[in-house]
Structure formats: C-alpha cells, structure tokens
C-alpha cells in the first residue's frame, strides 16, 4: 500500500506555493516512495520527523563574515528559536546540522571534513553564502575551496554575500521540509565503529598517514 504520493509538507504560517523549488521536493518524494511505504511505519516516521524537524540543533561553526549574520539570526531580533533551532552545539557529536558559514580554505578543508565525519547520523549540511557555495568573491584565489560540496555533501544552498537573516531562515525552513518527507527508517545508519583500537594499530595508522 502506498501513502502520501502527492504529499505536501506543511510549514506553519507559510503557504506551500510561497516556497521555491517545490518541483525538486516533489520529485524527491516520488523517488523516496517508489517502493511503497508501509502504513504503520510511514505514520511512525512522520511523527518522528515532525519532532526531528522542529528541534534541529546546529553546530556552532563559522569561519568568517557570514558568521556574523548567523549570530544575528540567533539574536533577539530574528530569533531562530521560533523554529526550534535555538540550541547551538559546540560539539559536532551533539549536532544535527552543520551550517557552513564563510569561506572554506585549503587549510580548513580537512578540519571541516573531520567535523562532518564526527557528527552522528542523520546529519545535514547547509551551505550559506556564496563562499560556501562556490568560493564566491574569492573564487580566483589560490587557497580557497571552490564550494563545500567538493568536501562534504550539501542539502540546502543559501546564496548571498552575506545572505540576509531572512534568507537564512528560509533556508532553514527548506531543510525542515526536506527532513519532513524523508523516511526515518531508511536513513543512512551510523557506520560500524570498531570497539577499540590497540596502541599498535593506532601507531601504524599514524605512520601510514605521515608517510603519505
């Protein structure tokens, strides 16, 4: 049995037609529902998603200018707490989403990758600002990554230099919609981690790295 073939996500106080990129989302829903979804699990997943999408915890991560707009969104005037996003986490292990604010340069790229790897599944990435999308004003530079999607997969892009706080909020809502249509039980699971690493193995790994 199939449910929700034409399912539209609902965001409070915002009409479905007012969002852009609806076709993308609809196609995504279609893809997700291809094999059909069992009723009970589907409903359960909806309930879980409702909870998840209304309490997304971002990682405090900002490298440059766009980070100031992030602080403004967190501030009293724009206040993303209205959407349940207010708890910034300083540790990637407790965060659900990483907002990449600012330019990512060669020296920072491995750090960003590691932060992403440390986050628990399910995890999301939002690239905010033209720097994070493509290198932006610094595209010609010798030391700037041409967009974070070269390093980690991105869910939502928010253009602007810097994007206005309203644009960042809009990007957050788009992510919320994406979370809502996903099937929670089919999300990627955490890769299996070996329980313990012996000092010898650890050393060998380190040597292999340094030799490279």
């Amino acid at each position, binding site marked *: 049995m199939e449910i929700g073939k034409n399912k539209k996500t609902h965001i409070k106080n915002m009409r479905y037609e007012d969002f852009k990129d609806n076709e993308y989302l609809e196609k995504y829903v279609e893809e997700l529902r291809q094999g059909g979804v069992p009723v009970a699990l589907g409903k359960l997943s909806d309930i879980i998603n409702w909870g998840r999408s209304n309490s997304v915890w971002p990682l405090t991560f900002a490298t440059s200018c766009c980070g100031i707009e992030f602080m403004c969104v967190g501030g009293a*005037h724009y206040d993303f707490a209205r959407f349940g996003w207010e708890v910034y986490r300083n540790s990637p292990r407790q965060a659900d989403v990483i907002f990449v604010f600012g330019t990512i340069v060669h020296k*920072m*790229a491995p750090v960003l990758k590691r932060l992403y790897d440390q986050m628990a599944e399910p995890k999301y990435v939002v690239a905010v600002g033209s720097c994070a999308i493509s290198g932006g004003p610094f595209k010609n530079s010798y*030391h700037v990554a041409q967009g974070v999607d070269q390093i980690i997969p991105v869910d939502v892009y928010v253009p602007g230099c810097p994007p206005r706080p309203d644009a960042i909020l809009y990007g957050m809502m788009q992510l919320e919609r994406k979370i809502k249509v996903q099937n929670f039980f089919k999300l990627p699971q955490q890769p299996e981690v070996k329980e313990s690493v012996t000092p010898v193995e650890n050393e060998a790994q380190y040597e292999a790295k340094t030799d490279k």
Partner: protein
Amino acid sequence: MKQKLTNRFGWINENNIVENDGRLTVTVAPDKLTEVAAFLKECGYDFLVDMVGMDYGDSLGVIDYVARGADTSDLIALKTSVPDREHPLIPTVSGVWRVAQIYEREVHDYFGIRFIGNNDMRRLFLRESWKGYPLRKDYDADPNINPLPLENEPIADMDTIPVYGIDADGKETVTYRPMYGDDDYVVNIGPQHPATHGVLHLRVALDGEIVRSVDPHFGYIHRGIEKMCEGYTYPQILHLTDRLDYLSGIMNRHAFCLCCEKALQMDVPERAVVIRTIFDELTRIASHLIGWGSICNDMGAITAFMYGLRDREKIMDIFEETAGGRLMAAYDVIGGVASDLHPNFRRRVKEFIPYMRKMLHEHHLLFSANPIATGRMKGVGHLSLEQAIALGITGPSGRASGWKNDLRKAEPYAAYGKVDFDEVLRQDGMTFDRYIIRLDEIEQSLRIIEQLIDNIPEGPYAEKVKGVIKLPEGDFFQRVENARGQFGVHITSRGDKTPYRVKFRSPSMVLVEALKDVAPGGKVADLIMLGGSFDYVIPCIDR
C-alpha cells in the same frame, strides 16, 4: 630626522633618503639594515607599524614602516632588497622591534625571504608542504600543484622550528630548534572552538592549569586577498576590503578610498567627508557592541551578547536604509559615497543616540558592576605600556594600557579634526580596562555623531571619477583608526589600472601575537578572557 640619519651614517646621501609628502623613505643595503633599525629605535621610533614584502621582479625586498610610539603619526619607511631569488637572505630586525618576528614569518611565507636570526621561520598561513611562494610574481597558481587537501597535515613535525643563519662563506644554513620540552603538556584550542572567535588554532603548553606558553597557528581562513588584489581594478578591490575585518568593514573601505584619493590628489566633497565620518562611528559602535557582547559571552553571560546584538540591529537598520546592505554596507567609493542619504537617516540616528545612552547605562548597571564579572576581569591579563608599544598593539587594547595612539587625534582624517571628543585612556592594562574602554568609546562615538548629524553640508555626495582609475607610480600608505586599532593600506602602483602590490595592516594580528607574551603564568580560563578582551577578528589576520 633626515639630518640625524645623514650625520650618523656617512654612506647615506640624497640617493637613498627621499622625503615626499612629509614622510621619509630610507633605502639601505641588507647588511646595514640592523644598525639603521637600532638607530631609529634609539631616536624614539619604537613602533613597527607594518612590514611589507615586495617582489620587484629582479629582486625581493621588504619595506618596514616605523613610527614613534609617542606620536604615531610620525612615520618613516625603511626599504631593503636582495637580488638573489634562490636564497634571499635578509637579517632580522626582530631584535629591535619585538613584533617583527611575526611580520617576518608572514613575508617568509609569501615571498620565501629568509630572515637570518629570526628564531621562528615556519610558514605562517600556508601548510608546510605548500609548493611555491604565492605572492611572488612568477608563482604558478595551477591547482594541480597544490590540490585541495582532505587530510590534516600532521602537526607533530612542526615542533621543530627552523632558524636560518649564515656561515663563514655567506652560505645559508638551517638549524632546527624544538618548540616544546619532553614534559610539556600541550593542548589544542581550536581551530573549531567557540571561544577563539573564529578559526584560530592555539597550541597551549600547560602546567596543571597554568599556561606555560602559547603558540598561535593561523591560516585557517587565509583567502589570498592580497594576491587577488593584484588582478583587480581599484574599485573592484573595495569589495574585498569589506570582507577583511567585517565588523569594521566601512572603516577599512574608508582607508582604501583615502589611500587612492591621496594618490590621485583628489578632493572629496565636504558632504561625503561628514557622511563617512558618521558611518565610521556608527560602525565602531556596532563593532564594540559585539566585542563587548563576546567578552561577556566568554564569561558565560549570554544575555549580554543578546543585548549587544539587539542594539546593533538598530544600526544595521540605519545602514540598510541608506546603503542597502547590512553587514557589508559597500558604501564608501573612491571620490565620496555610493548614494545619498535616505530621508529618514537623520531622524533615525537622532532617535538612536538617546536610546544607546540609556542602554549603555543599563549595560554598566548589569555587567560592569557585577561582582562575578569584575572578579573574572580585574587583576588578570596585564599588558604593560612597553609591551603594547613593542608589539604595536593599537586601538582600544593599547589605550587600555595608557598608550596614546588614536589616529583620529594624532593624524585627523575625514571630519575628526573638527569635532570635539576625548581619547579615552586607562592606565592599568588589565582585562577589565580593555572591557570598560569599549563602552567608554561608544559614548565618545555618540558625541561625535551628535555634533555632526545636524551639520551635514549640502552639496554633491561624490566627486566624479573616471571610469578607469589609474594611480600614479609610487608607494602609498594610509592608516585609519578602526574598531581594533590602526588599519593600514599600502599600495604600490606602477601606473596601471591594477595595483602592483597591495598590503593591509591588520590590527588584529599583533593582538594574537600578544597572547604569547601576556598569557604565560595565567590560568587557561584567563586566556579565554584575554582573547575576548582583545577582540580580534581572524579573517583580518589571515587576509
């Protein structure tokens, strides 16, 4: 000074000392550099403002800008160069000016010049494995040579610090010294850490809770702005200046415009001058509010941070109305400002002034007198006046140690000569002084705006400039007082529509360097407070 130099050094003549625009430029051979530097310091030039690396094509060189600590407007440029591009060796001046140590590392990173005797010649921004020196004119920017890395560079081997020397035949020698002892306990703070105010990486050696030494690592947001400037026209570069120290973006842009206008000998309409001054001061208030908020945030008082942001939003609204942008107002242009004032501007600013005064009072009541806050800030993080000058710590942080260095007073630019305000000074140089001085400066900024807002002259808001701006040949240097200290712009022009070399003096860089001198002996928790009270902006350092 010219007389003194020629008297002291017989070999100095008309060829290697020129005066233009009231500024002396002394050109010396590398082997004479240290003595001249030492003599300049004897004469009171104890503040090394900036060091600019240069690639002249046939030779590599550096320009040191030095000023007198007692009067920071008194500037001398000291130039030297070496023809050898394979092994460029220049003696260090870090023995004379303490802060030269870090400036020389930067020049080394960009140009590959080795400074003999500098005891730390690691690269500053780029990875040790980076191939080539990016600011040389013959640098090959092919991305295949330096691909995007996805693995961290192991930092362990960075504990061996190269030191360059010279042997009896004039050949270059390298020796390595260790950074840490075997029993040092080293902790990494950053690059992703909420208390470093950006992507700064501090390697801190600890003895229990006491800091033994701090070693800052930069470059996690090195965007190569200076190299990019060489390919852009002057109006295009303006957009990059905003993105250096984004909290004082308008002032940085102002500095670049002033530098170009000085070179073009262009007069800016009175109206634009006054508008620029008002915008600068509004930016300063906005920046200090964030600075103040983040000190409190570091102490755990998130409320203060929210209050700071709330008041800052009012300024952002004013900017947005007139300039169209919030954080990046993109308002100053060469010859004036980009657009005329919004009709609401005057009313909004006039409403803002009493509001801000009231809020300042509240901030003082809530935080400045709070026993928990004062307990954390009083009596820790002492920066002495001598240290401040040796490190070139300008701005509020330097003034908290009693150093008079406000360029708005020393070398009035824009409309600062016409307004009445105090240069706030404090004597103790503690974390608390750096905290309180920011709030006091907000009051002074309000005074400046108050005097100007009703006296904006009528007339055009910008001078007409040609479509293609070409600066005349020569070196130009201009400083302004931004929210963190003296921000400088150096432009070397060869008469083209793009500059030959652009260098920005970042006031934040020396603030991080100061952690090395100030933090040891204190607790780790005080190190965090120290960072908060210095209020550095990392992208400005890394450029």
